[in-house]
């Protein structure tokens, strides 16, 4: 009762359609290959890890040993914000956020004062980030420093 649509049983085309048959098969085959390529190529590229390693949001390589002279500091990018890495005259590393807690200017290390200073409104911080004088209302967030090999790792302190 009723009709069932013909399936592949009907695949004996008359000679007239020979050209068309080849065309359809070519179209399909070519299409499948092209789409397969278009899908597999990105996935294969995806598998390859990028050159810049993702250490996570908490840790970053701030510099290399020997890069900083004693009693000097440098600004390094830490996620979205600048950080300050200091090497004291006695060979200790300190690291802290470089965003001033007053009006967000970038602070700097002053070798003459041996303190962290903000040029915008003369705010001063100690080597532990504590706000000592001037407008800043809060200390700078301090980071942990670890030297592994010749790389200096700066890590955010974990929240509770």
């Amino acid at each position, binding site marked *: 009762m009723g009709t069932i*649509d013909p399936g592949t049983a009907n695949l004996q085309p008359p000679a007239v359609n020979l050209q068309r048959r080849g065309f359809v098969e070519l179209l399909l085959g070519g299409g499948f290959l092209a789409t397969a390529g278009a899908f597999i190529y990105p996935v294969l590229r995806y598998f390859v890890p990028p050159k810049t390693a993702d250490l996570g949001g908490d840790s970053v390589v701030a510099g290399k040993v020997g890069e900083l002279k004693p009693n000097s500091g440098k600004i390094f990018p830490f*996620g979205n914000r600048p950080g300050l890495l200091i090497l004291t005259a006695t060979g200790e590393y300190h690291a802290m956020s470089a965003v001033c807690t007053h009006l967000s200017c970038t602070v700097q290390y002053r070798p003459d004062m041996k303190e962290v200073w903000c040029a915008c409104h003369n705010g001063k911080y100690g080597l532990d980030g504590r706000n000592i004088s001037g407008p800043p209302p809060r200390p700078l967030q301090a980071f942990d420093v670890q030297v592994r090999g010749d790389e200096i790792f700066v890590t955010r302190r974990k929240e509770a």
Partner: protein
Amino acid sequence: MTVLRNAVNWLHDRLEWDDLIAPLKEKTVPRHRLSYWYFLGGITLFLFGIQVVTGILLLLYYRPGANEAFESVQYIMTQVQFGWLIRSIHSWSANLMIFTAVAHMFSVLFLKAYRKPRELTWVSGVILLGLVMGFGFSGYLLPWNTLAYFATKVGTDIAGQVPLIGHPIMVFLRGGEEVTGATLTRFFGFHVAVLPGIVVLVILFHLLMVQRQGMSVPPSVETEWTAKPSLKRETRFFPNFVLRELMAWYVGLGVLGALAAMFPWNLGVKADLFGSAPAGIKPEWYFLFMFQTLKLIPSKVWFVDGEVLGILAFCVAGLLWLLLPFFENDRAARSRRWITGLSVFALAFVIAMSVYGYLAK
């Protein structure tokens, strides 16, 4: 070509799949003016497959944990080759899948495919819809941006409003009293392990039922065919229907690719637990109709708290929805009209409330 044929024959000699494939070879699908609706279920399954593949790829780089989640998604979007593509496809496909799942459900409803003997297919389908929304809710938090954080906060708050069991449910969902990094870890576990495990079993059952019972024919077409049997038309499942489905799936791929390339999913701003909620925060579109309804209910109805009443109403409605096929009694025609009326109302309500929720401030 012969290489392929030899390989197939080699496997066939060892696996002997003739009796498994035979029913598939004979299987037919009814063909009538409404049979295009049959594709929706397959498309939903296809999109789920896309989610699994892109999800596994994302797992290679994503890190759960309040300190790292946002940065890892940022890494995927900016540093990983084609990471933007994989992530955007995952996000778009999630939304499209929920849409097709809901469309599939309403088409089943209007075409009356839930009738005996397919009641369990309906029940498993509604369960699947709930699981899919669970996927959406848990996955939304994983990038750990402000919108996600507050949407989760509001959503779990609402869950906590259910009388008696609400608070324990909320604590279970949040992994604590508040939404924290613990919530993120927990949602990650739900999203990549718990829900996939459960949903795979339910999908298998759902598909098994569909395969064994075949496709349902809408009542109007049935009556036509009973009157004039010569009108009845069927298509072979393999290869005709499968090829058509393949077409639909390829179109779906094209749509996904276009959406991902033209409208990449954005990163947002990293969640700040101590910040205040952005003004006019709303849940994702598939929760909007519930959200907006709750907002419209007055704060006190008689002596009952308005929001609690709303949540309970939705729970009851959900339960009735799940058991819908069992309300069709002996006087099939009459109850069927009721159900049609209810379906129209439900669809109109969901659309109207979603639009309202989207436009409201």
